[in-house]
């Protein structure tokens, strides 16, 4: 396990370096000038140049990159060009909202997908199965920019149950979490169904049934546990994505998370913020995947991480 962790730590450092280089180069290659975004159309050329100089944007790309990397080594992600606030402060301010939304969406998706996927597999080709798969298709097909406003119209404006947007009200989390969780639940339920169907045909399930175990035990304890590996992989990947911020959902619901911070920074060409957020998202993704790998060992003791023997 220790060897595995060391290996993953080393590969994480490599990923961070690679991402830093790529993000830095890509954001500087994208057309658009942060100084223009800040000062607007009517700013005078001398003011533009003074600001460019003050922000260090008139330095060569190489010098800017060295400054960025040396800051990174010291744990300094720089200062936002637009708001003049440290990037780390902005990230810390936004991270709780994103974590809250990601966990809630994941929770909703698991609560919906597990029973639905099991039901569809156990009652294959029945109305239950068809209904579950129809929901799955619908969930995958509905874009969040449509589902979000639809939920707002029904549950906020129509029924008045939840606030329209923001994070400051009680129940603010419900609609964005459902919006984000629906698509994930749809994918997850399909995965549970197909994985479980595969396992249900295995010898050990037949043996369990032959031993006279109740069907409930056979399904939930023996079959489902063995069918969970691909589901956990998918959950891990999705959690990584969700922790990176759900741009559309956060925009629709004015949810002050990392996704909104990232997209706003890209549109304003706020280079330090874009670099900082994408770096944090990448590291989060790598860490979540590492944790997912470790969960494999718990779910299936035959898997021993970092031990080829």
């Amino acid at each position, binding site marked *: 396990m220790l060897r595995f962790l060391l290996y993953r730590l080393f590969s994480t450092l490599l990923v961070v370096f690679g991402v830093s280089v790529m993000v830095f180069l890509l954001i500087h290659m994208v*057309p*658009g*000038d942060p100084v*223009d*975004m*800040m*000062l*607007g*159309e*009517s*700013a*005078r*050329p*001398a*003011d533009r140049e*003074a*600001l460019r*100089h*003050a922000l260090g944007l008139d330095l060569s790309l190489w010098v800017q990159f060295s400054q960025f990397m040396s800051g990174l080594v010291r744990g300094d992600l720089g200062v936002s060009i637009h*708001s*003049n606030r440290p990037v780390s402060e*902005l990230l810390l*301010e*936004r991270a709780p909202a994103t974590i*809250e939304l990601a*966990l*809630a969406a994941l*929770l909703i998706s698991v*609560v919906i997908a*597990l*029973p639905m996927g099991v039901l569809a597999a156990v009652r294959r080709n029945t109305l239950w199965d068809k209904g579950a798969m129809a929901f799955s298709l619908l969930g995958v097909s509905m874009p969040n920019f449509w589902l979000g*406003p639809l939920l*707002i*119209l029904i549950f*906020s*404006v129509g029924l*008045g149950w939840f606030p*329209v*947007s*923001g*994070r*400051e*009200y*009680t*129940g*603010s*989390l419900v609609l964005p*979490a459902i919006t984000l969780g629906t698509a994930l639940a749809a994918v997850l339920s399909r995965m549970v169904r197909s994985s479980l169907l595969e396992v249900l045909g295995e010898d050990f399930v037949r043996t369990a049934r032959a031993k006279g175990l109740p069907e409930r035990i056979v399904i*939930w*304890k023996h079959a489902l*546990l063995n069918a969970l590996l691909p589901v956990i992989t998918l959950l891990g990947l999705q959690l990584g994505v969700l922790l990176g911020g759900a741009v559309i959902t956060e*925009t*629709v*619901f*004015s949810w*002050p998370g990392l996704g*909104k911070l990232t997209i*706003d920074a890209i*549109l*304003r060409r706020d280079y330090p913020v874009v670099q900082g957020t994408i770096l944090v998202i990448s590291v989060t993704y790598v860490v979540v995947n590492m944790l997912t790998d470790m969960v494999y060992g718990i779910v299936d003791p035959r898997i021993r991480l970092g031990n080829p023997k």
Partner: protein
Amino acid sequence: MIARFLFVLLLAVPLLFSQGCSQPDSNIIRFGLSSSPLRLDPRFATDATSSRLNRLLYERLTDFDDASRAIPSLANWQQLSPLRYRFVLRPNRRSFNNGERLTSADVKTTYDFVLNKKNASPHRSSLVLIKYVRIIDPDTIEFELNHADALFPSYLVIGIVSEKAVQRGVNLDQHPAGSGPFTMRDWPEEGRLQLQRRRDKQVFEFVHIGDSTVRTLKLLRGEIDILQNDLPRELVNKLRQDDSVRVANRTGSNFSYLGFNFLQPQFADRRVRQAVMHAIDRKSLVRYVLGGKTRVAESILPPEHWAGNDAIKAYRFDPGQSRALLKQAGYDAEHPLRMSYKTSSDPFRIRIATIIQQQLADVGIKVELVSYDWATFYGDIKAGRFQLYSLSWVGIKSPDILRYVFHSKAVPPDGANRGHYNNPLVDRLIERAEREADMDKRAQLYRELLIILHDDLPYIPLWYEEHFSIVRKNIKGYQLTADGSYDYLSEVSRQN
């Protein structure tokens, strides 16, 4: 094990949903914004939202009337000579929010800071004509200029900051130190700023909601009390029919236009530009798409501006005349005029561009629409990578804009003459007007200039967009201003 896991999950859902939230304070008046304020330090703020909020937090020496003339605000002024101005602070002025009295030392600190090159204030260029600032007494201050400029008082609109706060190194973005009618209460996150009105402690929250539909729904549900501008027409019309809100509008001066690239040979021909002008039905666009109090424009300065010209004869919508001009310029159905039209990716701008594309197609001009996100689009326009583009000039106060946009030496990066327009007569008139110390004569020169520009069409003038507000019925006292400021929040109250 799995059943137990699911049970725990089910229990966790309601717990999660109750985390991190509290009931909103119903006494707070909430204002919905389409973009967040970025800087609350007036020496650096440039974006429209920050500038409007800074007006609530700080006071400035001068301000503008509805004709964009400079008027006294924090101080009255006297021109002692063409190069020297004396400002006397209003005796009944407010103190800073920390209780200290605003004096001429604070004025000097503010302007000295902006003029110091190493501080990189984006306002320095407009003030660089100041030679020095001298304190006469705590209420009186003098500005000595390097060269005469009759418009000088109109440049002194930066919020005055507290000298002591600056000396203590206070971050004014986080802790604004001004003498305006409001003070900052809290800024928990970028999209949520709370200000408190000093006279009665009423709290206002400025909430950024990017999506216009969500902004509207929040207003209808009472989560927001006031909205201003930045909503599609159909949403405004829908809100007009709702009993819980009140819609108000007034004329504005933000100027929308189409710009030509004169480096493209087809646009060097004035007949082509006039053909485009005659092909666009601006009145219908205003009536059916923009509506309200949006006005068809004939020049960059609105008629009510002190240098504006209300005698310019409007171009009429005349497809026949347009086709005739195109034919004279050598274009017909066999050899149609082709052009690309760049606009931003804002859905409303794309919709307007699509209508103009169709109107131009009706006279035989083939237009290809290209839209990019704002930063890319603006970068292309600045670099001259366009044939035809649409944009707006926002918040024009000074006729200096005419040099900045139309003088042949104002090609980027030295100005905003992005189309490389070059007319020696226009250059001469701009320079003459700038040298003229008599404001009436100066205004007359600008009026002549506007007629020449209207005839020559470096821009196709489109319209001046209206300002509108939508306010919940229990909110009283909010009014729109000519420049879209939020100044009337000092009069607003909630009546339960």
